[in-house]
């Protein structure tokens, strides 16, 4: 999601630098007040950590891998302001030294990923985790969701920034000067990649790291859990089910929500006039997916189920739908949500079946082959 130089007009770049600046300033001030002399070593080493995490390949269902951003774990462990600083630092080094992201677009990239990402991650995490115990599985789910929403929030900002370029900046003849694809292509193309691949990677890393820290180093989770007592040593057993497995009922609930919401919204909706599955096979959309998914190739053709589903969603109650449902972009979003929900449900099902299949008579697990 790192936007290179040349994709955004100079005015867009300037606006985003100007938008990022107050946050940078505020972040520096707040972190200084919070950390005093620890500011330099903590932010530096954590920024280095973020940089390295961004290079991880996270395996996601389907056999592919994607790169995480690590923004949620930064916000959860350090709080949003230090996270803004640490991630901006990592992004700077990536841009200047590794050419990952542009220099004129550094303000935009920091705004999207470091600032918007950190704030969304923090707010969602606090909202869902509430005052749950530090080692509760609710925090794992909160972390996973905050990562998922943060990266998608960042992606949406990037998509909008890119999608607006051809609307405003063209030559006299009408040729787009910077990013060439309008909102109707940019948003769905970028969002699909992030609602699926990148979002899942972020979800896995965020939830997984918090689950790990709950067992290994719970005091690191203290900062964003104010007023919650740290667990005593005796109640921190390795045997206690925390993390993924205990959270499975919650995952199932989340997945069902994702699946049912589009259906729910559309049950009363009108037919998606302009949108058909065929649009999914335009090269533009596919290439944008490849870009958004950090070069993970999207499926070669739309899932055939897609085409049948679009017919299912032709609604019988035309009068109840708001007009925006008929826009192709929205249609993409909803089908993606639906897809995610199905993926999660399927993953849970497969994992459960695999575990059953590999359980030996004595109750222990044999080493399963890759599913």
């Amino acid at each position: 999601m790192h936007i290179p130089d040349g994709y955004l007009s100079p005015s867009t770049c300037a606006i985003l630098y100007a938008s990022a600046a107050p946050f940078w300033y505020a972040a520096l001030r707040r972190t200084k007040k919070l950390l005093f002399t620890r500011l330099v070593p903590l932010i530096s080493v954590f920024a280095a950590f973020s940089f390295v995490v961004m290079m991880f390949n996270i395996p996601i269902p389907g056999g592919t891998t994607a790169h995480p951003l690590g923004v949620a774990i930064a916000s959860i462990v350090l709080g949003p302001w230090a996270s803004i600083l640490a991630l901006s630092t990592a992004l700077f080094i990536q841009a200047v030294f590794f050419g990952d992201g542009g220099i004129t677009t550094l303000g935009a990239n920091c705004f999207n990923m470091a600032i918007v990402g950190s704030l969304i991650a923090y707010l969602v995490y606090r909202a869902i985790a509430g005052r749950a115990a530090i080692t509760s599985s609710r925090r794992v789910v909160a972390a996973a969701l905050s990562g998922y929403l943060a990266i998608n929030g960042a992606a949406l900002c990037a998509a909008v920034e890119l999608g607006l370029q051809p609307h405003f900046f063209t030559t006299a003849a009408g040729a787009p000067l910077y990013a060439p694809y309008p909102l109707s292509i940019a948003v769905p193309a970028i969002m699909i990649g992030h609602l699926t691949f990148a979002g899942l990677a972020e979800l896995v890393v965020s939830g997984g790291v918090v689950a790990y820290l709950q067992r290994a180093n719970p005091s690191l989770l203290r900062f964003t859990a104010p007023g919650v007592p740290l667990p005593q040593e005796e109640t921190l057993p390795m045997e206690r089910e925390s993390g993924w497995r205990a959270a499975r009922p919650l995952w199932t609930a989340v997945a069902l929500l994702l699946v049912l919401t589009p259906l729910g919204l559309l049950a009363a909706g009108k037919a998606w006039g302009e949108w058909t599955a065929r649009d999914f096979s335009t090269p533009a959309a596919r290439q944008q997916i490849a870009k958004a998914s950090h070069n993970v190739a999207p499926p070669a053709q739309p899932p055939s189920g897609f085409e049948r589903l679009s017919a299912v969603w032709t609604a019988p109650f035309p009068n109840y739908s708001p007009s925006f449902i008929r826009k192709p972009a929205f249609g993409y979003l909803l089908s993606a949500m639906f897809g995610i929900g199905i993926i999660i449900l399927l993953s849970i099902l497969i994992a459960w079946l695999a575990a059953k299949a590999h359980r030996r008579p004595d109750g222990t697990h044999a080493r399963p082959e890759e599913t």
Partner: protein
Amino acid sequence: MANRKHRGRGFLERTTASFVDALERTFYAEETARADGLLQRVDPRVKLLGILALIVPAAAARSFKVIGGLFILAILLAALSQVSFGVLLKRVWIAVLLFTGVIALPAPFVTQGHVIGQLPWLGWTFTSQGLASAGYLVLRVETAATLCVLLVLTTPWIDVLKALRVLQVPVVMVTILGMTYRYVFLLLETAHDMFESRRSRMVGKLTGSERRRVAAASAGVLMSKTFDLSSDVYLAMQSRGFRGEVYLLDESRMRRFDWIILAGFTLVSAAAFWWGR
């Protein structure tokens, strides 16, 4: 159930490969920065401002000629600074084509405008506006990326950071950036060792969820080490008198040569802005 070591491009291999790649880049960069080329002799602040002053019009200009001209200038500067074309090709030009080139590819077919042709079998029509748009994008990115790489390859990293002071970046941020850079390599190595040792202990394939747990646990372990490291570094800094303020040594003076180069950059940049408006 066959137990065999999986030697394919699993996620651990791919991750460690990118670590190694990152380390290699630094080696090369540190070497070129020591070579005796034109840009190496220029004051880092002049280079920072000058190259920025060229990147902005490259990213902004409305004229192909201007962007192309800046690109040619970048190539010329590279040649004069002993930056090998092979490296530019491999690390910059081809990488950009594979990324932005692929993204720009559909533009001719998707952009509305004056149709000037049609692909033989697929029948997709393309417009002149679309072609121009794709051209703008690719050329911009190539030029900007080349200029940025020039800065980094001809200047020691820490000098680039210290030059940021001229842009009014606070000293504390410059210090943080320097320390981050220094510790990126330590953490890369730590993560690399972690993954290598996991790989050597892995027999047979892991399930998807096991691999995810490995990845997440590795991130978790790395984070714990991160905190321990930062606490120790904090103590080490305090031990040498650190009390919250960071101080940089005052910079070397600008020579006449530097002023001349700065003037050159300014002129070219101004011209690029003017003709590209």
